[in-house]
């Protein structure tokens, strides 16, 4: 590579698309490539994380990347002292986030080892009890967020408050509750990574051991040996399946088939056994309908609880399939038997000493792996679902008070600007004057909306500057699936016209008709037997996985959600192709080979 030309462009040369001028002001100063730091920043390799954040951030939503990536880093750097890896630095540029892992200087690695062994070792040794405590902490945060509500300011402070000598007004709770919500979700994001990095570390150890024993072993075979199958991440889908089965058994299936959610529920209620079914539906909602078709990182993500038509749609599909004589339940016993068969057949091919090490490493990987799947339900789905619900309520309140013309206006403000707005709201209320917000924000939000829309017209770069000779940072490899090979794919990807290559993420090979899905609202367009092609998928798309034959994504590694769900549902998957969703058109006949990572457009 020529020293002057980088493999990927510099952020400093990447201009914003027309109409997006001034985007820099929408994000905190510390998240931007600062002009004065060009020389330093261009020395680093940055890759775009479009797996978690495929769309440009609204200013408020940028908080999700801040909390998530900061908290990922703290555990490597400050809690466990992962010997070779600190956290991941990140910047927002033209609305997308770019990541750059920070390694530990080679001479410092050795000193961190004893601390890592002491600190991380404690977690591995006490995993079940610490995890039980984790569930309590996360649930307590959820409960506290649920209990918080935002009330419009009344004309006067309640007389009881006055007589009780409270000495405070209604703005107090408003600002404190807002701050508390932010602090609670910040805490929750710390919990998110309390176990996750360690889970990946144990998996990486097992993975490396297997690759050394069997250099040609497919990554997916290793994943299959530790996969749990009864993860809470798949519970929402399983609950809908159970409800479908119950509806058929109770004879209320017909009543569910038509009309809006309210109409269908009313129709069921009028059936002899209807009340029983409705009770089961209500029971399933808490907590399992705290589930989004998005990934939890956007204020626009739709959650089942607030859009009951989504689970009802899946339910109707399952009822049809039950009535057609299909088995919709996953064969759990068979899946478990298969997992054990795979493990024992590889073990048979090992020396006795290796087999013993195998048992130890696989045992630990199986202990920690469920967290890698489960946490996603508790944090991204449940916790974030409650958080967004409360934030949308606050945005709506301020919309009704005239601060912005649409219900979602608040999300065009940064989280700190929202504090200002709350103060403005309380301030003018207290002094008896007029709010400044309703004259300031509507046109400012409109301007920002224009910027975000303009940013979305331009796709992110896969990466910036030059990659290192070899990627050695363990979490980059594990979480993002970025290796020296995959980087080569990003560059070569555009030249091969009829074929696409990605990661062989879930085994099997099929041919079929492609359905390109660019956002979750299109999910109901999918027809039975099609192949889902998408920039990225969310685990909550699981209910459509019963309809499709295979999945192809632009982004994601072996441990991406698409890969996990496909292995769980026994569907072939190729992930991280770079450009499948733009190269493949709905209706194309394609061949997907989840064993080799090849995707071919046939016609």
């Amino acid at each position, binding site marked *: 590579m020529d020293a002057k030309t980088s493999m990927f462009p510099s952020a400093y040369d990447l201009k914003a698309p027309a109409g997006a001028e001034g985007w820099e002001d929408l994000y905190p100063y510390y998240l931007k490539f600062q002009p004065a730091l060009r020389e330093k920043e261009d020395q680093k390799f940055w890759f775009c994380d479009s797996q978690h954040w495929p769309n440009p951030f609204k200013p408020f939503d940028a908080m999700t990347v801040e909390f998530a990536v900061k908290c990922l880093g703290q555990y490597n750097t400050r809690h466990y002292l*992962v*010997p*070779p*890896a600190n956290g991941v630095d990140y910047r927002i540029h033209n609305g997308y986030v770019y990541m750059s892992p920070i390694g530990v200087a080679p001479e410092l*690695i050795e000193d961190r*080892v004893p601390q*890592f*062994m002491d600190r*991380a*070792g404690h977690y*591995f040794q006490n995993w079940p009890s610490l995890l039980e405590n984790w569930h309590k902490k996360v649930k307590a945060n959820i409960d506290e967020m649920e209990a918080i509500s935002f009330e419009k300011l009344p004309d006067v402070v309640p007389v009881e408050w006055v007589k009780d000598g409270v000495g405070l007004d209604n703005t107090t709770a408003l600002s404190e509750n807002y701050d508390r919500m932010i602090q609670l979700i910040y805490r929750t994001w710390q919990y998110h990574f309390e176990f996750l990095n360690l889970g990946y*570390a*144990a998996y*990486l*150890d097992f*993975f*490396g*051991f297997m*690759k*050394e*024993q*069997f*250099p*040609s*072993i*497919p990554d*997916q*075979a290793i994943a*299959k040996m530790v996969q749990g199958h009864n993860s809470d991440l798949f519970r929402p889908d399983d609950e809908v399946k159970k409800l479908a089965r119950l509806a058929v058994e109770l004879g209320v299936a017909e009543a569910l088939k038509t009309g809006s959610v309210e109409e269908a529920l009313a129709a069921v209620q009028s059936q002899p056994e209807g009340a029983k079914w409705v009770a089961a539906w209500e029971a399933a909602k808490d907590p399992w309908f705290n589930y989004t078709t998005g990934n939890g990182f956007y204020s626009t993500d739709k959650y089942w609880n607030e859009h009951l038509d989504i689970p009802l749609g899946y339910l109707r599909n399952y009822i049809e399939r039950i009535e057609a004589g299909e088995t919709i339940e996953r064969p759990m016993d068979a899946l478990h038997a298969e997992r054990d*068969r*795979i493990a024992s*057949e*590889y073990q048979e*091919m090992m*020396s006795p000493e*290796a087999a013993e*090490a195998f048992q*130890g*490493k696989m045992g630990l990987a199986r202990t920690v792996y469920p967290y890698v799947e489960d946490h996603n339900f508790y944090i991204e789905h449940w916790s974030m679902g409650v958080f967004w619900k409360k934030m949308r309520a606050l945005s709506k309140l301020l919309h009704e008070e005239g601060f912005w013309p649409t219900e979602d206006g608040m999300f065009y403000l940064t989280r700190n600007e929202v504090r200002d707005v709350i103060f403005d709201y309380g301030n003018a209320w207290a002094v008896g004057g007029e709010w400044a917000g309703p004259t300031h924000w509507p046109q400012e939000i409109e301007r920002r909306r224009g910027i975000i829309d303009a940013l979305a017209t331009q796709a992110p770069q896969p990466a910036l500057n030059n990659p290192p000779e*070899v*990627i*050695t*940072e*363990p979490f980059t*490899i*594990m979480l993002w699936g970025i*290796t*020296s*090979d995959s980087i080569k794919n990003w560059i070569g990807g555009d030249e091969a016209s009829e074929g696409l290559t990605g990661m062989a993420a879930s*085994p*099997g*090979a099929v041919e079929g008709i492609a359905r390109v899905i660019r956002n979750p609202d299109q999910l109901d367009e999918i027809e039975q037997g099609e192949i889902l092609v998408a920039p990225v998928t969310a685990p909550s798309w699981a209910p459509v996985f019963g309809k499709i034959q295979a999945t192809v994504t632009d982004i994601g590694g072996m441990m991406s959600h698409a890969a996990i769900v496909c292995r769980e549902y026994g569907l072939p998957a190729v992930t991280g192709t770079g450009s499948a969703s733009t190269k493949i058109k709905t209706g194309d006949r394609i061949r997907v080979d989840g*064993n*080799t990572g090849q995707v071919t457009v046939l016609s």
Partner: protein
Amino acid sequence: MTKFTLPFSGIGTADHARVGGKCASLGEMTQAGVAVPTGFAVTTDSYVAMLDETGLRAEIQAQLDSTDFDNVPSLERSAQAIQIRFRSHKIPAAVEAAIRDDYTAMGRDMPVAVRSSATAEDLPDASFAGQQDTYLWVVGADSVIEHVRDCWASLFTARAMKYRHDHDLGQIDVLMSVAVQKMVNAQTAGVAMTLDPLTGDRTRIVIDASYGLGELVVSGIVTPDNFTVEKVLMEVIDRKVSDKHIELVPDVAAATTVEREVDADRRKAQCLTDAQVIAVAKLAKALERQNKCPQDVEWAFDADLPEGENLVALQSRPETVWSQKPIEQPAKSFATGMMGMVGALNNPVGSKK
């Protein structure tokens, strides 16, 4: 007790010495429920009877006594002479009757393959299999009897004699059995190895496949399609489709096989469906489990049998190259517990590529 012939289904462990490696394996496969074309073994008892009741033994011995094994022309002359002696004697009547009975029991004018099953041929450490002749598409009892005798005679090719001489195996002491087996009307056929022959990787099954009978694959006359199957997941992980220009097919009228050009549209097409590839891999894996060591399996899809029952094993024998090597331990020792994890983090596997 002398047994001149034994049906595959009746070959017991005690019979292995007198039916040779190939028939013993066919017998074991038949009894383990593996689909194998039916047939019978003409035992070494028959061969011994041939040697002893016709005076052939003395004639061969006399010829061997005058052979200079280090002189190629002398060796060639001896081989020719011994083979002529074989053909100049009739097979003993009792042996002929046994072959005739067993052949007739297979069905009227059943086309069969007549193959050698030498007792030394398939020893795992003596990879000179295939040195004796194989006759395909043999029809009628008279022809079968004639070809059994030809098989015996093929024990005395110059190359086989030289090999036995060099390895001190004895000449007349090496006995031969002959397999008479229903001819497979092969749509596709080939070889499956339960390890990667290039690397010895035992997590893989490598399959060569082409149209028609498998002989062209074995002899290397046609470049077969090549499939790699992951042994544990049972998934096709690599496929190389080749230009398969000829196929060996039966010429029923002439009671023989002929090489035929493959039609243009089939030549470059994948000759097995993925499902068929997996079926072959499963068969090979089952045979490896049964025999407790890596196998080299010849298989075919028989056009005369119904779909789903049409995959047959023709032969399974221990793989001879990699099996002789000790299992290679990974060069790096593995750390366990927390040190293992530290090692994995400091040197993650993805970074080594």
